[in-house]
């Protein structure tokens, strides 16, 4: 008893470490993940403050200056219509990142709700939801996305919707599997013995414990969504011009002449996609390591 009290007094001097802070401390030590994290933050800030970072209008046409090489006025040159490439790249970041984040956010919400219900209630509800998930997971992505966009028209909202609707089964499965195993833990039995309501059991006990895998899956999912957005826009099925996105800026590279002689019209958006997706994947990997409780220091 006495020695325990002593220990308590010693422990009092250190501060409380919440699980989130513990994770952050571990993540901070992973250099690659931190580089990824910083790049994502810079990208996001650049997208948010795009209007203040460039003197040009997004769609301002300047035919006299079309296809200009990078120079001091246009740091990344201009496109075939004389629009400033850097400006369009920054505004394109807005679209690409928004699609990535919102589509993944939507996917996570659907996945958590359906996966949570399936895992917690089990039985027939579980069977039904998981069979629906199987059906959605079976749908070939591109044909469905192309058909959907063809019917609804190309817009970023339709794109987010398609990405979320076709992407939720993976997340729902992760959440369901986590909840199935958490449900059997003794602290859930303790909650039942204490008479805690179902709602609180799910919201306060189960979901916070699934967050680790959801965050990892979502981070890597954002990268996937950005890539898909680019692919669809490249095919002319995503974001409609004149709104720029990294994907539809690449469309110019379909032209052999542009590909050979005007590198500034396609290299920057390609590089932006590459760096962003890479950063997100590095961050996702870092988070996975940081959240793994088995790697305790």
């Amino acid at each position, binding site marked *: 008893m006495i020695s*325990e009290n002593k220990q308590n007094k010693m422990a009092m001097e250190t501060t*409380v470490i*919440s699980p989130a802070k513990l994770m952050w401390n571990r993540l901070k030590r992973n250099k690659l993940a931190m580089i990824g994290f910083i790049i994502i933050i810079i990208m996001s800030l650049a997208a948010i403050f795009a209007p203040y970072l460039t003197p040009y209008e997004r769609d301002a046409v300047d035919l006299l200056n079309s296809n200009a090489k990078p120079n001091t006025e246009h740091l990344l040159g201009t496109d075939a219509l004389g629009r400033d490439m850097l400006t369009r790249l920054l505004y394109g970041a807005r679209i690409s990142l928004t699609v990535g984040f919102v589509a993944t956010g939507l996917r996570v919400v659907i996945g958590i709700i359906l996966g949570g219900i399936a895992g917690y209630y089990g039985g027939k509800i579980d069977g039904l939801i998981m069979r629906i998930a199987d059906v959605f997971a079976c749908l070939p992505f591109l044909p469905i996305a192309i058909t959907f966009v063809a019917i609804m028209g190309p817009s970023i909202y339709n794109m987010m919707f398609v990405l979320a609707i076709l992407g939720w089964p993976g997340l729902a499965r992760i959440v369901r599997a986590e909840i199935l195993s958490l449900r059997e833990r*003794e*602290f859930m039995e*303790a909650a039942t*013995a204490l*008479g805690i309501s179902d709602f609180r059991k799910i919201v*306060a006990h189960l979901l916070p414990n699934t967050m680790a895998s959801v965050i990892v899956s979502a981070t890597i999912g954002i990268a996937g969504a950005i890539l898909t957005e680019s692919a669809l826009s490249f095919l002319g099925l995503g974001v409609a011009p004149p709104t720029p996105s990294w994907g539809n800026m690449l469309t110019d590279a379909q032209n052999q002449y542009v590909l050979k002689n005007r590198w500034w019209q396609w290299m920057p958006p390609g590089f932006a996609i590459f760096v962003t997706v890479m950063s997100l994947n590095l961050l996702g990997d870092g988070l996975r390591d940081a959240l793994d409780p088995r790697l305790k220091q």
Partner: protein
Amino acid sequence: MVEQIKEDMNLVVVKNLKKYFPIKGGFLKKTIGHVKAVEDISFTIRRGETLGIVGESGCGKSTTGRTILNLLNKTDGEVYYKGKEIFNLPKEELSRLRTEMQIIFQDPYSSLNPRLTVSQIVGEALVQHRLAKKGKDVNNKVSDIIERCGLAPYHIRRYPHEFSGGQRQRIGIARALALKPEFIVCDEPVSALDVSIQSQVINLLMDLQEEMELTYLFISHDLSVVKHISDRIGVMYLGSLVELSPKEELYNSPLHPYTKALLSAIPVPDPTLKKDRIILKGDIPSPSNPPSGCRFHTRCPYVMKKCKVEMPEFREVDTDHFIACHLI
């Protein structure tokens, strides 16, 4: 009148309780059999006493404890708490019942949610049952309780991973005590702890019992621990109670052959002392396919013809001494 007094003395009455778990198998997940975890057991727990339950692992001790708390559904039989049947209660009544009976778990690691602070773990139920307001009120009450359990008030802001096993078990005890229950099922509360911490936790449980007039159902496989804390002891074998008697009587004059074998297995801290151990042959049979007649007959050294056919009745052979055996 006599009935009334009897009812007041007995806090919990268990009558012919059965708990089977279905075994699902085959393509269509049909029930192809049952694990008979608890098979027809009856006993009473008196107000203020500690009833110990001992037995090998897998004999249904924990299942019994959990079924009595209505954490598992019964298959058959009745459980009365303060004279009221606890199954099929309306929702509000069950919720009130939850504040009166609690459980302390074996594993202090999996029994605490790693994402909640001590204040949330212990105070959650107080808020749920509207016994305290969120915020300062809860924190004050939680501080009081954990102080009683041997922790310090400033611990309420911490997370479980910041505590040792013994401290975590104290948090588990504090959680069970938060609602000021009268009856607590202790499901092997010290088996996962160091021997030095075991005695601390047991003494804490005994002090709390005196202070708060608690009644315990103490489940354990450690005979010396049970001997220390219990008033009466029940011995379980393969889902059934084989013997139930006051502590001294059980340790001094065990009647059932299984109890005798179990007690002879207690190690004596004296290397020169030779002890006649009763070594049971064979393994414990599967509870999904228990032997006919007396469940112990496959390993009993005194087995008779009758034992293989007829299930012995669990009856009182002496005052307060129950036994299920054809020998006596």
